[in-house]
């Protein structure tokens, strides 16, 4: 019977210090890039919120009248109908009450 040697010695990975630093660099670059893409995709989820907000500020900027009290149609409505803000008709049509829902069973 042949005399097999069962003592197994793992073949050592021969990496020089230079190569090791290089591998670290590659791994680091891969991690950094994927993290960058991931955060960018997450930020991207909110990009459309900013775009819509800009749309409304653009609408404000190009409006000829930019304060509610200077809206001629509103002034007209108060003159011909509701009287003034907080008048009794205004209170009736433009104001409301709220309910304590913890007490509604």
């Amino acid at each position, binding site marked *: 019977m042949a005399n097999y040697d069962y003592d197994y010695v793992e073949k050592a990975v021969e990496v020089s210090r230079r190569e090791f630093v290089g591998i670290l660099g590659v791994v680091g670059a891969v991690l950094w890039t994927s993290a960058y893409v991931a955060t960018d995709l997450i930020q991207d989820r909110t990009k459309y*919120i900013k775009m819509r907000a800009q749309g409304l500020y653009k609408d404000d900027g190009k409006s000829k009248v930019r*304060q509610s009290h200077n809206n001629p149609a509103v002034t007209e409505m108060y003159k011909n109908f509701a009287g003034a803000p907080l008048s009794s008709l205004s209170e009736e049509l*433009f104001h409301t009450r709220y309910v304590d829902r913890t007490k509604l069973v």
Partner: protein
Amino acid sequence: MNGFQAQELTRVIEIDQKKCKGCDSCSSFCPTKATHGKYGWVHSVDTEKCVFCGQCLVNCPFGAPKDVVDPVDKVIGKLNNKNVTVVTSVAPSVRVAIGEEFGMEPGSLVTEKMYGALLKAGFVVGDTNYAADVCIMEEGSELIEKIRHYMLGEPTEHHLGAVPQFTSCCPAWVRYVELNYPQLIPNLSSAKSPMMMHGALMKTYGASQLWKKKPEDVFVVAVMPCTAKKFEAARPEFTNAAHYWREKGEQGSYPDVDAVLTTRDLARLFKKLGINLASESGVEDNGPMAQYTGAGTIFGNTGGVMEAALRTAHFVITGKELAPIDFKPVRGLKGVKEASVTITDAKTGKNVTLNLAVVHGIKNNIKPVADQIVAGASKYHFIEVMNCPGGCINGGGQPINPMGTSWLDKAKAVLPWS
């Protein structure tokens, strides 16, 4: 079911059991922990806790939550009825988002095209922005009255609520207070939301003075970026127009707002009628019920109501217009924005310092602010609150994440030069 008034809508959002993968994304957007189910389990909505904001709906990666209130066919039926005047109340945020449903960039401002498409469909155009201006007059006057009474010591004829005053335009926020902070109800502005003001106004002033129609023949369709507005319109107290006419000896019983369409619903209605909004030619002027100012249109952004209110409050108190008109501290996406403004009262010459706060994204940001008021330690006078992160422009009724599904758009967002 607890927490509902009689005849109120009790369900708006439901999760499709077949589509839900149990990823629990909805729970990370739900402001009230109303999405039941653990990770990996099929989720369901607890309607007693739900504020109907629809944040789960617009953020679910699988499209499982759905809006179960669909009035599109009912509205088309009314449009076909020649005896009925169907008027809209289109919210600010709709005009910067509905284009997305027709292949346009997010944020494209399509007011004129939208008016054109609405007219083609047979609507009489009313714009909620007009009512937002009315809302500023009412809510602003209420705030000024409080400032004059509590800070300058003047007498008042009105029944005033507490300071700080909360905005009350956001129906999800109102329901949130009613469910979770009932002790803060006196702090909510008594002013209705622009949508509800517009409904009541169009069925009284609009019907009798502008269109010469019977109020019961005016059918008000609100177009909102919001699913909670469907709940708000169904609240039993909002029948003020009918009450107004009954006092004048007329008959009839009808709500102030008859139907609420979300931005998605309106896009579906246009598509059913064969109208392509993107290729519509624009219509600019639409009569008094659609005449609005820049202050009305920014209501859809977080900080917008505050900025609009400040422009008017500043003028009323000091007698001078706010300058510069853009009030930057309340703009942007910071969770809680603060500002302090010192103004001189033209009547008495006294200085008043107003502490303002703007909160959006209730889930993460409202608790410290609300708890401070409960503890009596709040320094604020006026607080704007919107449930959805970013405000109504990111509401639960808006087109679903325009950048969430297309890889091409994602690549475009990642590349620095595009």
